[in-house]
């Protein structure tokens, strides 16, 4: 009721100000009239009565203003008049407005862009119901996380009590063969419970059931929304129809909703049931006993990660006869249960946190710079503020005025910053390191815009606060006589402190990017173990024959290789199951030496000539060749570091080893070859074995071709593809890349961090140079008279120059000192991204300090030069 009255009265005033003002005037006038009448009634003459009433009443104008100022509507009016005034002020100083708005736009834009990338990955829960309960489960062996075997999964399904549902999956890349050129899809083979674990159901059709996921069960698929729209025109009658994959007909049973985000394999567009065989548990030489499945689970409500870990640990330590285990799946160290969110962000967390830290520094520098500019302006406006205070503006009114100005600047910066962020997000996505999860979630969504709005407001208040307090503190008398120089001390102290902090922040950023740069340098100085120049690579997937025919598969690769070799210009070519630094890392198996050593090793199945093609060194013995066929004694090459660990000081040639299943004949070591970096250049002692295709215990479905050519190797791509397709036109070829490129992009995470750091450090350097320049030139302007006196008293130009430069360099020196301390502490945050360089690397620190000092010396030079040219006769006369 009264709230309504408040609102209505206020609105009436806002709508018709004149009528409201007349009401107040009339009421005040009437009051005065009545007071006069009262005095006349006491016997005073009309003139005397009026004077007496006036005496008692005070100034009618003051009363009028007092009454008129009541009501919430006046605050709005005041706000708008302050705002209009602020706009006018900014338009009078366009250079100041431009620089501040641009600086803030950079700061706000950069941090909004980074936030938009970091938020969905690090802070937001995954897009599933109760995503916290979704876990990933790994088999642990010798400290390495391994994919689980199918029978281990089955044992956990039966014995574990911690999970509502468990699911396993493996990559599946079916080829749509009906088209002219085969298209391969990324997909997954999943156990029936996969979508239950994630908590998402198909939008059309139905989910997989246990009946679908049976050995030799029906051929059914579920499509992603994007595939359904792209290939099938969003046809709602798709459910029940058949599609031809791998020469087989599959029935479409469902389509996932468009909002479904498959964070485990973002590129997957099609799913089929796993259909492994649960009956053959005693047959060890099967895919069901291979470490080839990823496992996820949804915890029961109320069960924590620790409880689940304990539960699974107990199962691992207590085998039961129902579930016999072979040595390679005997679960000696149990399992690791970790939330899916952590798993997905594990690889990129250090880089993202470092980048987030860097952007905070940039934002701080931007704020400090604008605060400084506002302070400098405040110094010029002292007279104005003193005058307003003298005319009766309260301290809060003055503070509000300055804050409205800074908020206006921040808002303009924020609006422009959204544009900067838009561009920034696009750049970030383009630069993003391989394996950055939830890439499609990186957009300027509502959360991000809310964040931008929040920091804009915060910055508006933060950068205005110090100048507002300074402005309102001004002493009336001092301010009005504008010549007083003593009062300038306060401003200058603050401004200098701000510049010092700016230099310190810039130094931290520069040190960070310097260290990352040096890390990349030392990484790329490491020999990868092969010669990457003039080598073309591509991945060929044998897709038609599902699982069953190893011989046919080997034959296809052998024939394809023959065709490729026949091409003119090809010096040598070979297939390998694992290509170094390409992201392949699933080929890890146990190697048990007869002498007792037991290691996890990379298993390279290579055709003859692979080591020659890649230029991998042979240290001892012989390479693999045509001799090592299916019926020849199994031969293996081992990497140098494996040889050194297993047979220190001995000759490993002739030693015997089991790779993979132990129930097969021993492999005999026939040679030792150089170490090759497989996952990263930072990898130490990569242990590896090399086998001939015919002697491996299974035939790989995916092989990478490595091809060395004379001259321009990239121009061979179409010819090579055609040569492979001449053997079988349905085999998809993907990931065509020069080995040089793979090598360069293998360090994408470090590189990404370094590029972002360098960009930010550059901005920081420019802003802090601008900061020094601003402070010095302000101080030169205010000290013109002093400088004039000095030169009149005989100071040379050199003396004056030195005076100003010394002032600037003192600030720089202080900033550097604080910055070095800060950098020494804060580089701890990027220590995992560094390689081959200490975070206290003196060369980096010295180089960065030299750069910063040089830049700030340049920034000092201009004001100093201006000071040196001050003509004493003019300045002294001006007094």
């Amino acid at each position, binding site marked *: *009721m*009264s709230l309504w*009255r*408040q609102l209505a*009265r206020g609105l009436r005033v806002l709508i018709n100000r004149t009528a409201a003002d007349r*009401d107040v005037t*009339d*009421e*005040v*006038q*009437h*009051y005065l*009239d*009545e*007071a006069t009448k*009262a005095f006349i009634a006491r016997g005073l003459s009309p003139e005397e009565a009026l004077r007496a009433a006036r005496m008692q*009443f*005070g100034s009618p104008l*003051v*009363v009028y203003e*007092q*009454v008129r100022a*009541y*009501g919430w509507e006046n605050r709005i009016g005041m706000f708008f008049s302050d705002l209009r005034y602020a706009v006018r002020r900014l338009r009078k100083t366009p250079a100041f407005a431009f620089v501040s708005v641009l600086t803030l736009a950079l700061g706000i834009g950069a941090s909004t862009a980074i936030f938009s990338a970091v938020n969905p990955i690090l802070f937001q829960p995954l897009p599933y119901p109760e995503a916290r309960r979704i876990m990933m489960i790994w088999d642990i062996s010798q400290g390495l996380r391994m994919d689980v075997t199918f029978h281990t999964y089955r044992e956990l399904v039966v014995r574990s009590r911690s999970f509502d549902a468990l699911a396993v999956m493996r990559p599946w890349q079916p080829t749509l063969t009906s088209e002219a050129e085969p298209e391969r899809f990324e997909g997954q083979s999943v156990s029936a419970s996969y979508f239950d674990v994630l908590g998402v159901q198909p939008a059309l059709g139905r989910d997989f059931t246990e009946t679908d996921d049976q050995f030799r069960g029906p051929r059914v698929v579920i499509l992603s929304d994007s595939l359904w729209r792209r290939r099938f025109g969003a046809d709602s009658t798709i459910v029940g129809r058949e599609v031809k994959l791998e020469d087989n007909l599959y029935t479409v049973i469902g389509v996932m909703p468009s909002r479904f985000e498959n964070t485990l394999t973002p590129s997957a567009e099609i799913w089929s049931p796993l259909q492994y065989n649960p009956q053959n548990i005693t047959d060890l030489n099967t895919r069901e006993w291979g470490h080839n499945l990823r496992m996820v689970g949804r915890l029961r409500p109320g069960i924590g990660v620790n409880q689940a870990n304990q539960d699974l640990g107990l199962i691992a330590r207590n085998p039961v006869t129902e579930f016999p285990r072979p040595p390679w799946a005997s679960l000696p160290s149990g399992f690791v249960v970790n939330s899916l969110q952590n798993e997905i962000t594990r690889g990129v967390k250090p880089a993202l946190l470092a980048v987030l830290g860097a952007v905070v520094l940039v934002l701080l520098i931007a704020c400090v710079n604008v605060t400084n500019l506002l302070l400098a302006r405040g110094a010029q406006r002292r007279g104005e503020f003193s005058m307003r205070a003298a005319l009766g503006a309260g301290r809060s009114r003055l503070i509000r005025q300055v804050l409205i100005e800074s908020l206006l600047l921040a808002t303009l910066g924020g609006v422009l910053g959204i544009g900067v962020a838009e561009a920034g997000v696009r750049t970030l996505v383009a630069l993003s390191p391989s394996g950055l999860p939830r890439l499609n979630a990186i957009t300027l969504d509502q959360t991000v815009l809310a964040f931008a709005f929040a920091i804009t407001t915060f910055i508006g208040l933060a950068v205005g606060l110090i100048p507002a307090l300074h402005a309102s503190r001004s002493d009336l008398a001092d301010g009005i006589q504008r010549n007083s120089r003593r009062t300038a001390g306060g401003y200058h102290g603050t401004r200098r402190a701000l510049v010092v902090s700016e230099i310190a922040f810039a130094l931290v950023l520069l040190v960070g990017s310097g260290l990352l740069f040096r890390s990349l340098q030392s990484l790329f100085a490491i020999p990868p173990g092969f010669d990457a120049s003039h080598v073309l690579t591509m991945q060929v997937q044998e897709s038609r024959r599902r699982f069953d025919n190893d011989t046919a598969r080997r034959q296809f690769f052998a024939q394809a290789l023959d065709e490729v070799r026949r091409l003119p210009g090809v010096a040598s070519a070979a297939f390998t199951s694992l290509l170094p630094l390409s992201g392949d890392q699933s080929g890890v198996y146990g190697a048990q030496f007869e002498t007792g050593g037991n290691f996890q090793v990379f298993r390279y199945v290579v055709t003859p000539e692979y080591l020659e093609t890649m230029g991998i060194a042979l240290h001892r013995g012989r390479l693999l060749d045509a001799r090592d066929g299916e019926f020849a004694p199994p031969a293996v090459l081992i990497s140098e570091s494996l040889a050194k660990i297993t047979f220190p000081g001995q000759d490993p040639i002739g030693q015997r080893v089991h790779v993979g299943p132990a129930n097969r004949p021993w492999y005999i070591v026939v040679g030792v070859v150089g170490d090759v970096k497989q996952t990263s250049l930072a990898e130490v002692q990569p242990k590896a074995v090399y086998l001939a295709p015919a002697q491996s215990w299974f035939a790989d479905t995916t092989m990478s071709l490595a091809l060395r050519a004379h001259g321009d190797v990239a121009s061979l791509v179409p010819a090579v593809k055609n040569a492979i397709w001449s053997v079988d036109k349905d085999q998809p070829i993907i990931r065509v890349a020069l080995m040089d490129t793979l090598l360069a992009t293998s360090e994408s995470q470090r590189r990404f961090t370094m590029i972002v750091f360098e960009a930010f450090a550059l901005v920081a350097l420019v802003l802090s140079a601008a900061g020094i320049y601003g402070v010095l030139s302000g101080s030169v302007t205010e000290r013109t008279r002093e400088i004039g006196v000095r030169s009149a008293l005989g100071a040379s130009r050199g003396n004056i120059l030195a005076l100003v430069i010394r002032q600037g360099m003192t600030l720089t020196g202080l900033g550097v000192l604080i910055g070095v301390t800060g950098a020494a502490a804060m580089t701890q945050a990027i220590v995992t991204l560094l390689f081959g360089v200490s975070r206290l690397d003196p060369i980096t620190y010295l180089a960065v300090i030299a750069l910063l000092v040089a830049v700030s010396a340049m920034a000092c030079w201009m004001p100093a030069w201006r000071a040196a040219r001050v003509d004493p006769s003019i300045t002294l006369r001006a007094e």
Partner: protein
Amino acid sequence: MENSNTDVIQGTLDMLILKTLSLEPMHGFGIARRVEQISRGVFKVNPGSLLTAVQRLERAGLLNAEWRQTENSRRAKFYSLTGPGKKQLEIDTAEWKRRASAIARLLNAEG
């Protein structure tokens, strides 16, 4: 004129206005004069504070305002008490009496 007049005690102006208007509707000066008369000149009412206070009470729904024509054809704003205003006056009066008697007891105990 007495020299010993005092400003109205902080926070009691609203109550005094309500009390004054409980007798009859009045304009601004009328309220001020009545407060001074009844307090025998102890309380002086500042016109600006008074006019702001009646405006506030009007917006809070405790008073109604009405423009009337005066004899010399000027406009005068007359205020009267509303139902909620009466209730508020009772609450304020009871509260004031409670406090005043407590203070009186304290002062007497000192003596």
